[in-house]
């Protein structure tokens, strides 16, 4: 419950803060958002499986976000579109995690 409240507060804060990312870094930022979302979904999934480890979650969240943005930047400099790799990896995992979360939720509802 608390994380959801945090998410809501964050979204509201983000809209209130009069700061927007410079257009140049916008693409790296979008990759970072994708990585963060991936971590969040992974966290929800592991918590449903009773396997949640906050250390893994936090390190994954920050590590993935920073690494994804950095890789996108490096790829840009090298002329290799590495951000595709990030999009595929995180995108695939997002859907996978979502599928597993769905199954867990359905199981829980049917148990009741």
């Amino acid at each position, binding site marked *: 419950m*608390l*994380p*959801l*409240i*945090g*998410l*809501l*507060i*964050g*979204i*509201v*804060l*983000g*809209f209130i*803060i009069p*700061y*927007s*990312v410079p*257009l*140049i870094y*916008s*693409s790296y*930022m*979008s990759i*970072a*958002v994708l990585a*963060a*979302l991936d*971590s*969040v979904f992974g*966290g929800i999934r592991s918590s449903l499986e009773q396997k949640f480890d*906050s250390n893994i*979650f*936090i390190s994954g*969240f*920050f590590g993935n976000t920073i690494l994804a943005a950095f890789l996108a930047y490096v790829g*840009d*400099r090298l*002329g290799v*579109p590495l*951000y595709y790799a990030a999009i595929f990896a995180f995108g695939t995992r997002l859907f996978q995690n979502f599928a597993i979360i769905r199954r867990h939720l359905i199981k829980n509802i049917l148990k009741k």
Partner: protein
Amino acid sequence: MRNNNKLWIIMITFMITGIITSIQFKQDKNRTDIITMKSLYEEQKNIDNENLEIERLGKTLVELEEKLKSYQSKEYGDEDIVSSLEEELEANKIAAGFKELQGPGISIHMKDSEQLGDAQDVMNFVIHNSDVLQIINDLRSGDAERIAINGSPVGWDSEIDCNGATIRVGNDIFAPPFIVEAIGDPQKLEGILNAPNSIVQLMKIWDIQIDIQQVDNITIRGINSTPTYKYLKKDEEGDKR
């Protein structure tokens, strides 16, 4: 306690996710493509060019303002007005091509091919008005300041038209051989004409004889016909823009 701590940390991460997501949401959605370094560099170049243009216009503005000031000042007599108008007239005459001018440049001699091709492709072995037009175009892109064909100056409104076996430049009709003269940077002009895939190279394939020479001093006479306008009208409201 420890568990509670963890919860807070997780809440903070969720908050961060929310913040960056909504910041991304606020972005201008007109540009959703990834900006590459290359496009960024090109945009930067465009901006630099625009800035140069602004600088140039600013200089012009300062010049004109100074002129206006000198016009408005008390000690500005009739003679000054006459002399400054004469100066301006001279400058405009040069700009419009009414004055005879000299300078370094190149001269291009062109002759039809001496090969007799088959009847159907004999057209390929003669010089057309379009060839001359393209050569003029190349010269202009090489910053040629004055161009003449067989001694007849090419103005801003000269047409180059096909007239059977001859070409018409403005009011003058010429038959080959054609001599195109241009005042400008000789090296640059020759380089542009001889570039790969240029019209000159193409004409050489058809065995049309072209000889390009750099000349130290070319004289091109002024245009001697004054343009008359039948359809142009002045804007009634004047150009107050």
